[in-house]
């Protein structure tokens, strides 16, 4: 998500890498960092501050004497970037175990309040808190209907009133009563109408809700694509409500997200969550340190792993891991694993989180990983259960039938099977590795064309320089080696005795 921004920084540091580091070329590099930040919509004053701080730290003996100046500066930029976005953020919503916690959502029109309400409710429900939504947006046509539908999707109760006969404050008050009456509600989420921060009347209404309901957390929902104006609205909302947190939305696009940097720096309000998609599970905790790492091209492994742990069905994983280590991994298993991966989110977003793979997702915009995955799924779905279990039994007849079934070329089936085989053997090897090695192997594999890359270039055949190896001769050779080794061991034993 911060890809564009890290591109700019990389370019700036490439400049520093060239030639010897002098005070003037730090400044030149910093000028480029500044331009890059401004192009990323970071507030102008925040940018100025940042540049001043980093320049102060970078210019001087320490840097000039260090061996890799660019590394050193990246370190400082990373540190400052993290500090700017809030250092260690407390993304907890401070939910009360006793009574009802009230969360009030507010923001400009179109920032994504209603969707975010749904995402929060879904998350809280999953964590075992019993949420209830209150439709306090009586302004926008059909906003109540939208919240009702969102609530229906995640099976969370929604309190509504007829907009013609009620007021936002009234709805919130009655919503709280209804929640108390229901008995088992732990969290009440108020979806207020979008409003301009300069609309005194509507801001007054918001303050009234704040006064009457005394929400435990006032959360500002802010569009990540916002430009220089982000700080203005955040400031006013903060002055009116004493915000407890910010939720940054629409970070799944190509916005460079400078708003994230500035809002925290200017208001001091932490960013708690980020919205990364339209679906109701696309809400993640905000990690400034990881984000800063990502800006510098370090990847976001930790987020990926956390996500994987939550989403993957642990039991199924265990069964498959066993199968993998025994080399019994079949196409049917592969198919079920693909649907597991799908739960994680879009392939592109997953790939972006793995260090070194972020660039790959952008390399070829014409290759759609999702579409590739769908294609492979189609092929497997056109097979009989027998064929899925014994892919080696797929002959020409079967292959043609499968090809017809899924509307692909017979050669595509072949390619897919070939890649599956190489992947299965890779999986077998990988099952003994730690997570890190596995990721590395994954990366290598993807670089070779990938498990899904049936359409990608075939790998060149590798031949040994020593000429073709006869398997019988190889066995003989190993036997000999073993013999020599055992002899040596015996010899050593004798010597010791």
């Amino acid at each position, binding site marked *: 998500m911060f890809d564009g921004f890290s591109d700019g920084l990389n370019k700036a540091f490439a400049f520093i890498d060239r030639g010897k580091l002098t005070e003037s070329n730090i400044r030149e590099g910093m000028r480029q960092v500044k331009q890059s930040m401004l192009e990323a*919509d970071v507030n102008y004053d925040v940018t100025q501050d940042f540049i001043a701080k980093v320049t102060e730290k970078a210019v001087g003996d320490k840097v000039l004497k260090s061996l890799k100046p660019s590394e050193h500066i990246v370190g400082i930029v990373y540190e400052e970037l993290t500090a700017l976005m809030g250092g260690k953020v407390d993304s907890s919503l401070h939910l009360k175990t006793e009574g009802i916690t009230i969360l009030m959502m507010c923001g400009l029109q179109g920032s994504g309040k209603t969707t975010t309400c749904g995402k929060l409710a879904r998350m809280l429900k999953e964590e075992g808190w019993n949420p209830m939504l209150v439709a306090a947006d009586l302004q926008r046509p*059909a906003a109540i209907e939208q919240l009702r539908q969102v609530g229906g999707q995640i099976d969370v109760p929604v309190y509504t009133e007829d907009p013609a006969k009620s007021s936002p404050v009234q709805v919130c008050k009655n919503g709280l009563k209804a929640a108390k009456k229901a008995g088992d509600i732990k969290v009440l989420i108020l979806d207020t109408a979008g409003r301009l921060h300069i609309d005194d009347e509507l801001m007054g209404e918001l303050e009234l809700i704040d006064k009457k309901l005394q929400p435990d957390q006032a959360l500002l929902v802010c569009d990540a694509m916002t430009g220089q104006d982000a700080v203005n609205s955040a400031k006013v909302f903060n002055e009116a409500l004493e915000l407890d947190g910010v939720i940054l939305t629409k970070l*799944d696009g190509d916005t460079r997200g400078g708003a994230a940097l500035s809002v925290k720096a200017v208001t001091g309000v932490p960013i708690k969550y980020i919205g990364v998609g*339209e679906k109701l599970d696309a809400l993640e905790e905000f990690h400034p340190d990881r984000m800063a790492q990502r800006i510098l091209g370090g990847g976001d492994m930790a987020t990926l792993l956390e996500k994987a742990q939550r989403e993957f069905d642990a039991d199924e994983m265990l069964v498959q891991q066993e199968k993998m280590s025994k080399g019994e991994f079949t196409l049917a298993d592969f198919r079920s694993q693909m649907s597991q991966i799908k739960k994680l989110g879009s392939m592109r977003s997953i790939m972006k989180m793995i260090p070194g793979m972020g660039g790959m997702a952008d390399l070829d915009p014409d290759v759609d990983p999702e579409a590739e995955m769908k294609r492979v799924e189609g092929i497997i779905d056109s097979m009989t259960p027998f064929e899925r279990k014994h892919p080696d039994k797929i002959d020409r007849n079967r292959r043609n039938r499968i090809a017809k079934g899924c509307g692909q070329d017979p050669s595509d089936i072949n390619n897919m099977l070939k890649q599956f085989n190489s992947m299965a053997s890779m999986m077998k090897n990988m099952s003994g590795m730690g997570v890190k090695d596995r990721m590395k192997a994954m990366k290598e594999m993807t670089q070779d064309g990938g498990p899904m890359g049936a359409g990608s270039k075939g790998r060149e055949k590798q031949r040994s320089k020593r000429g073709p190896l006869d398997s019988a001769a190889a066995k003989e050779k190993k036997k000999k080696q073993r013999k020599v080794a055992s002899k040596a061991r015996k010899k050593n034993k004798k010597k010791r005795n």
Partner: protein
Amino acid sequence: MGLFDKLKKGLQKTKQLLYTDVRDLLKEGELLDESHLERFEAAMIQTDMGVVASQEIVEELREKHKGRTVVIDEIWDTVKTKLKELLEGDDSSTWDENDPLSPLNLAESGPTVILVAGVNGVGKTTSISKLAKLAQSCGKKVVLAAGDTFRAAAVAQLTMWSERLGCAIVTQPSGSDPASVAHIGCERVLETNADILIIDTAGRLQTQKNLMDELHKIYRVIGNKIPGGPHESLLVMDATTGQNGISQAKNFSEIIDCTGIILAKLDGTAKGGVVVAIRQSMGIPVKYIGVGEQVDDIAMFKPDEFVERLFEE
């Protein structure tokens, strides 16, 4: 409050910000030096017009005024002229002030199709109702097509507007193919001999390839059904949008060949300066601006007035 006042009120803030800033920066009779120019650039950047456009204006100032004593009126003149030049582009399109539909490329015969797209939450549906009202006030018969079949209650939102405006609307159940809504919309507008069909689409980020493909399909379907359509592909943009607006304009243009921009939510403190950068790099003009939540809060965009009002006292 009349429309003109509303618009003025909306732009006042922009003006105030720029004007006070610059008055603080420059004093009559001082020498214009590099530090003045730098602070001036900062003020420009704070309008979201981007680094490139800001630098271009500052460059112009540097060339004409650096090292001279400040005459505020002269400096304003330079800035205004340059901004107007950037906003008007090469084709210097001038629209008829008395005909609110003159920015639109209306079909010579048969119905005009307007496709409206944009990222999530920019105000597409609201802008469509405003546009429909505008067309109705010019005596046009309008049909709306509720092409946002994805977001919960989006169809209901547009239906409510159509009831308020008293215009026809075609809908399909939530989750159905938006291209089919466009198709039915085209059929309806031909059947009923209406003048203008406005097609709503779901908000989508310009990076979502599948959704952009879907949009392209809608675009193609319209062209197949009504030759020459869509006659207008309008991109709705939130005035608070920063430099990402350039990416939005670029990517949406590749898919639906944008003919213009509706700059919504200009009634806040945001200045919408990114349209300067878009006009400069892609040539897409702003055709209308949205200055409030009411259905009448829409106005034709006039580069000349935009800049004049930006700086008038």
